[in-house]
Each structure stands twice: as structure tokens, then as C-alpha cells.
């Protein structure tokens, strides 16, 4: 057999290749953040859009310009709608996710791992446009017939569609979280005379709390960032929502529908980048929260 390269050289080659991979990823992330920040901030510093107006103004209209020559860039309606959709969908999905996780882990573990989990994983793989399509044709029609509204578009149908979409993420993570609770906890609790329900409520759920919180936050992050499915059922009107069934528009949907319209470098285009920067900042905050919870959980368990 042929002579191998000396072991030391091989090691260096490996170090070089893996190091280059790390460098590439770091470069891409840094370049991405730099570009979005640079473009987004130029809306405020180059074009003179007021930051206060951006976060508190309620009139968003890029097609028309105000007396100062700038478009109307009050993003508050978009921010409010984004949060409303996110919170509402989490409120709908969370009880279902935790309930089914309890059933699948504590009550029928065999059914849980053999049938339920593959089923949920299947749901994860469905592309969001399919959910949007179902929302557009089924949920919107349902809204019309139940609430007798004219269009059936708005925050509520958006939240319902999103709830179905984030359900698999939240359920899978909740299941994992409950499974990670050591059996000795359950046995100890049962030995002390707790019923099964008391064990689940006071022992299992409590010690799984950090992972459940992570499940919630990850679900919320997905709800916050989801665009396509929401776009199809929300109505796309950039105005402060007056009810759950009045048409509205989230940050992401406004971004997708407006980004192809305005010329690069214009104030309108820069403001859209500022929205992108806002989205990125939000997801950064979500990730920070997850890290904090994880650290706290690790500390609590010793």
C-alpha cells in the first residue's frame, strides 16, 4: 500500500478545512447583518425618516408622500398586527400542544412514539403555501359564514392558520421536554402517594418548564416570521386593525408585497430594509430569551 501523508500534516489539513467552514459561516452571518443594518439604518440617517415616527406613527403609505417629501412610514400598525397574530396563534396552539404531549408521553407512551410522533412530523414537512391555500379557501369561507363579515380576511384567520403551522414545532418540542424528565421523579412522586394527575401537574410539567418555554418561544418565532400563509388570509391593508376580522398587514407581508415595487436606493426601499432590520432584531431577542431560559433551566437542575 502507498505511503500515507505524515499524521501531523493530515491533522493540519483537517484543521484548515474545518476552520475554513467556520470562517465562511461567520463571514456570511456578519455580511448579512452588516448589509441589512446598513440599508435599514440609511432610511433614518440618509433619507431622514424619523425613528420615533417609524415606531409610533400609525400611517403607512409608501405610494404617497407627505409634505416633507417622504412617504408615510408609521410602522406601528404592522408591528401591532405582527404581535397580535403571533400571540393569538400561540394561545390557540399552546394548550393543544401541551395536552397532546402529555397524552403521548405520560398516558399512552406506546401510541405516542409509534403513531402520534410520525404524524406530527409529517405535519412539520408541509410547505407553508399549502397552509395558506387551505386558509384562503376554507378558513376565510368559515369566517364569512360564522361571523357574517364581508371579506373574512383579517388577524383571526391569520392566527388560526398560523396555529396549525406552529403546532407541530411546539408539540414535538413539548414531547421531547416531557420525555427528558427522569423517571425517578415520577416514581418518587407516585411513591409519596400523588395521583397520576398530581404527578403530571406538580412534578413533570414543573420540571419540564424550561423546555416547554423553549417550545413556546420557538413557535412564536416561527409565527412572527411566517409570511406566505399569512399573506393569503390577512387582507394586506396597512392600517391599525380595529377588530380581529378587519383586514390588516404584518411586517413580513408588507415586506414581501412591497419589495419589488420601489427602486433600489429610494427612501421607500430603505424603509423596507428598516422593516427587515426590525424583524432581525426581534428574532435576535427571541434567541436570546431561549438561551437565557436554557441557562436558567440548567442551573435549576444543577
Amino acid at each position, binding site marked *: *500500500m*502507498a*505511503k*500515507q*501523508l505524515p499524521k501531523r500534516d493530515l491533522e493540519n489539513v483537517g484543521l484548515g478545512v474545518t476552520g475554513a467552514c467556520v470562517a465562511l459561516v461567520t463571514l456570511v452571518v456578519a455580511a448579512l447583518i452588516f448589509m441589512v443594518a446598513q440599508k435599514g439604518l440609511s432610511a433614518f440617517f440618509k433619507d431622514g425618516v424619523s425613528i420615533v415616527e417609524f415606531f409610533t406613527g400609525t400611517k403607512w*403609505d*409608501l*405610494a*404617497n408622500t407627505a409634505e416633507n417629501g417622504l412617504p408615510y412610514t408609521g410602522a406601528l400598525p404592522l408591528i401591532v398586527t405582527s404581535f397580535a397574530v403571533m400571540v393569538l396563534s400561540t394561545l390557540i396552539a399552546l394548550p393543544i400542544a401541551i395536552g397532546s404531549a402529555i397524552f403521548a408521553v405520560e398516558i399512552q407512551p406506546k401510541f405516542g412514539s409509534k403513531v402520534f410522533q410520525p404524524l406530527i412530523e409529517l405535519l412539520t414537512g408541509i410547505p407553508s403555501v399549502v397552509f395558506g391555500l387551505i386558509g*384562503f379557501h376554507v378558513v*376565510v*369561507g368559515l369566517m*364569512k359564514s360564522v361571523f357574517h363579515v*364581508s*371579506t*373574512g*380576511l383579517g388577524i383571526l384567520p391569520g392566527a388560526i392558520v398560523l396555529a396549525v403551522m406552529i403546532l407541530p414545532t411546539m408539540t414535538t418540542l413539548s414531547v421531547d421536554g416531557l420525555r427528558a424528565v427522569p423517571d425517578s421523579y415520577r416514581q418518587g412522586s407516585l411513591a409519596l402517594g400523588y395521583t397520576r394527575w398530581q404527578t403530571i401537574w406538580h412534578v413533570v410539567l414543573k420540571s419540564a418548564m424550561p423546555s416547554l418555554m423553549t417550545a413556546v418561544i420557538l413557535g412564536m418565532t416561527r409565527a412572527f416570521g411566517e409570511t406566505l400563509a399569512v*399573506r*393569503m388570509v390577512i*387582507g*394586506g*391593508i*396597512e*392600517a391599525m386593525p380595529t377588530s380581529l376580522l378587519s*383586514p390588516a*398587514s404584518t411586517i413580513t407581508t408588507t415586506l414581501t*408585497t*412591497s419589495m*419589488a*415595487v*420601489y*427602486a*433600489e436606493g429610494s427612501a421607500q426601499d430603505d424603509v423596507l430594509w428598516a422593516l427587515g432590520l426590525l424583524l432581525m432584531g426581534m428574532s435576535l431577542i427571541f434567541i436570546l430569551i431561549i438561551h437565557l431560559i436554557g441557562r436558567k433551566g440548567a442551573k435549576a437542575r444543577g
Partner: protein
Amino acid sequence: MLDQAYSRRQFLGLAGGLASIVGLGLVGCGGSNAANTAAEGSAAAAESVSGEVTYDGASSFQALVETAAEKFMDANPDVSVSGSGNGSGKGLTAVAAGTVTIGNSDVFAETKLEADQVKNLVDHEVAVVGMGPVVSKNVNVDDLSLEQLKGIFSGQITNWKEVGGDDAKIVVLNRKAGSGTRATFEAAVFGDEAVDFKGDAELDKSGDVQTQMGSTDNAISYLDFSHFDDSKFNAIKVEGVEPKSANVTDDSFKIWATEHMYCSKDADEATKAFLEFMLSDDVQGKLVEEQGFIPVSAMKVVKDASGKVSAK
């Protein structure tokens, strides 16, 4: 060194690395090759063009461009024509910046670009499209004046009984700002006035409007003629004139736009050849009407960048 043998894995890794570098190099050269051949093509006979044509812009007549591109590529196998429909604004900035060779637009370049950018572009008017208001099946209004349309789409008229219909709230389905259809409709109805009214929904595509109109009562929206669908909603008259292509050609039906294809002044041969093909009888004679558009040659009037209509 050469006789020193390496393990199979090292050899494969090295060979793979080399292959990918060579591959990249080839792709890099490919671009300049195309440019070279295009330049040579101009010197040679005009019928054997080759090169790469790219376009971006309005989605409203993208289908027309795509169909024409397929026919053009059948006749000129050495040319590749490809592109996407990201909206008139993007198409115009892209062709001005030189990232695509053709920019498609529903509106004149003057309305979106700076004057010194427009200077370097050549306009090709390839088709005319008529657009008209559509109402839900349950609405028994079949004729609206431009003044009434203005009232409805500015939020001043909110009930169908104010325009001769039943007592029901008008549901206004708009298109997103930036849509060429909306720009055309508003230019015809509002002129230069700024519109501040958003309506009950803003939809992304003509197809979405079709679906929503089909399932919503008391609604009004607007579509280009090729998207009319009598089974789902009614197209109504404007100022007593039927929304028909024949009425657009003499401007008796007021809501219409010209579809533009812009290229830069120093465009390559392949791009010029493709644009010539778009204006040739092959496309203008048949394809344009098949796709629901009106050939420019059929028009008895022209519209300029400021929206003024004059006889040809």
C-alpha cells in the same frame, strides 16, 4: 515527488477539488463567451444571432413575453431568453442598472426613473391592455361613470344604493400599491390626484382578485380584460361603454395601458433581435390577441408618458 503514491482518499479529494475549480473557471468563461459570440454575431449574418437575453419586470404581460420567448428560441436555438416578473419598478431599475437586458413595464419609465437614466433606454410598445371594473354576481349595477368609480375607490360612496343598486355596503377589493393594474386604473379614474383610500383588502395578484370576487358578495374590484370570468363575477360598463377591445382602440373605453419593453441603447444583438421579434407579425398578428391583449397596430390613439391621449 511524482512517484510518491497517495492514498485513494487523498487522490479523490484532490481530483474533486481540481474538478470543481475547473468547473468554476468554465462557468466564469461562459459569460464572456456569450458576450463574444454576440458581438461576432452582429458582424455575421443577422439571422444567426446567439447570446443571452434576460428580462425582469411587470407580471401582467409576462405570460406573453414567455410564450414569445419560447417561439423565438425555437427559431434561434443559440439564444437563451429567460427572466422573471418582479414588478414594473424592479424591471426598470434592473435594466437601467444593466443587470438585465430587457425591463418590462406597465408604465412609462419616466414615472419611475430619473431623467438621466431614462435617456439611455429605448422603449418598445408591444401591446395594449384594457382594464375594467368588476362587481359581484349579486350586484345589480351594470354601468358606472368615472365620477362614481372615483367616489367608490376614494371611500366617499360606501353603499350600492347611492349608485342605483340595493341597500348594501360596498366591499372594495384593491390591488397592492405598485400593481400595474392599479396604477392604470387609478390614472384613468383619479388622474393626478393622490389616492389615500385602501378599501377592504389589498390583493397581490389578478388571480387572487378572481377568487375573492367569486366568493364575496357586494364587492367591486378591477381587472384586465384577459382576467374577466363571467361565471364568477360581472364586468360592467364605464360611462355606458362596454369593456371590449374594440372600444379601447378608439379610447371610447378609457381605462387602458400600454405594455413597454425597455432595453438600453447599447443592447447586444440577441436582445435587439428578440425585441424585433416581439414587434413582428408573428407576435403582433396572433400571439398578442391570443393572450388577451390588443396589438399596438390596432390602436387609433396613443397615450404619452403624462397620460395624455392623442390621435395617431
